């Protein structure tokens, strides 16, 4: 755990941080809102005492209550992985600015997050489905995803026996997990 990094982050991003900076093992975790993503990422990437030039990962998360987008960053100025969690996206219409203005290579990861969670990355010029067929209607990694319904909605429905629309009458809404995810 890199205490100096924690101090630096707290001093630099005091205004945009939501909650305190958490540290566990070799990871430092900050939480911000969707509005300040562009500024925070640019500052992390450009400023000489941070210089997080390597974007290791971009992941979408569905906690069951809200959507989150997680960035993992590496810098030669610290021994830790920096995890930037953008929280508070609504599950109905999650929107977040794209990171492709810094890392062109984030494009496909954002496409994947859109494909799996329906998160809209504003500024990504190629936000298509990447794994699922282009006319796919649902987002598989959401917690309320139900395969049988989804297969019934898909163009090839009716081929296999489990591809039939699930009638919500005989078993209520999708059971969400009790865990909050954090």
């Amino acid at each position: 755990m890199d205490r100096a990094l924690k101090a630096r982050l707290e001093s630099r991003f005091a205004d945009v941080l939501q909650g305190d900076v958490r540290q566990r093992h070799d990871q430092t975790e900050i939480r911000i809102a969707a509005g300040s993503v562009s500024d925070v990422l640019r500052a992390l990437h450009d400023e000489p005492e941070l210089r997080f030039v390597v974007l290791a990962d971009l992941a979408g998360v569905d906690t069951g209550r809200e959507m989150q987008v997680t960035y993992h960053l590496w810098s030669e100025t610290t021994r830790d992985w920096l995890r930037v969690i953008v929280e508070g996206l609504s599950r109905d219409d999650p929107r977040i600015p794209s990171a492709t203005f810094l890392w062109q290579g984030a494009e496909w990861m954002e496409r994947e997050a859109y494909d799996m969670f329906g998160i809209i990355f504003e500024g990504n010029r190629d936000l298509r489905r990447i794994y699922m067929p282009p006319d796919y209607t649902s987002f598989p990694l959401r917690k309320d995803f139900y395969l049988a319904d989804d297969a019934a909605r898909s163009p090839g429905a009716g081929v296999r026996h489990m591809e039939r629309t699930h009638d919500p009458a005989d078993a209520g809404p999708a059971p969400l997990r009790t865990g909050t995810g954090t």
Partner: protein
Amino acid sequence: MATTASVPPGTHRSTDDPNVLIDDEYALYEPIPPYPPRTERELEFYTPGDGQLYLNMGPQHPSTHGVLRVVLKLDGERVIDIDPVLGYLHRGVEKLCENADYHQTISQVDPLEYVSSLFMEWAPVMAYEKLLDVEVPRRAEYIRVLAGELNRIASHALFMGWLALDLGGLTPILYSFIERDEIVEMLAALTGQRMLFNYFRIGGVNGDLNHDFLSRLGDWMSRAVNQIEANLGLLNENEIFVRRARGLGVMDSETALRYLWTGPNLRATGLPFDVRRAHPYSVYPELEFDIPTRSEGDSLARYLLRVEEIKQSLRIIDQCLEQMPDGPIMAKLPRLLRPRPGRAWAAVEAPRGLFGVYAISDGSDQPFRMRIHDPSFIHLQSMAHLLPGHLLADTMAIMASLDPVMGGVDK
């Protein structure tokens, strides 16, 4: 269902969307999607220029390394633009991992990059150990490093054969398969499986070193270098191969960072970024090895860099065999794992680059969210940057030099 309705003559229904009617003639000529372009990039790509034609490669193409489909925009033999289409091998591994318990996920992520499966196991195992605050015995760590480096050599050896095969050479692929087969037999003696070794366990490894493995390893190490050198004599010296691979898909380091390159491909552009040194994760701090880099950043550099990495891996294996401590190979853990809620990220240096796993626990016996970051996925993305201006013959050569594995690209 919509497919049962009759279609007017001269048209047929799209396999993507049965509500879309495609004019047969139009559909016969171009692989242009039957729906209006949805994004800026798609509009740009599927707007044909003057005298340009679209060529659809795959998913059943001899050399697309699996079931990749790429749509090429050609001007004669020269490639103007490329649009890879993924998803033909998509298995939803992340969803499956969310619904299997922590032990079972290891066998779920195993076949991601099936030529280097041990690394696919290493990252999730490390992530779970961080979630559970487990201390892994040092002997287990050494065994992991040993097996991992063997697997890295096997993967790199296979890469050279594939590159030569996509450049039209029939023989090198079989020589490298001979190399790979010896290593794979070794690992089978160690782990019990040839390809999808379900070997790493949370808090250790599945089995200890045995005499069969050690005897095979010693026998192979004595002649590995000469054997590999002899096989490479077919390529390193060959004028045709060198002239074709040189200056192919040149990438400079800044652009490589913007495209999130890692691993040998990034090192071939001159940046010595290696997770084993940049963020040491196992007993790698105790081992000494160099990080070879090259400055050209073309296919030949990627090829030669992997040759160097094979030698470094042999060094690491030697040191592992010397410094291998005694002791247990598994940490004490309950059979049913329920880590306390939290998040963990672990990244390893796979043969293709940074392979990371981001696991979220909600206190149950199954990961709440399991994110898998695969380097092949990232590297394949930059084809659209590397390819334009090259010839059709170089398409597969550049892709082979990036060394993607479709099992990892389509998770």
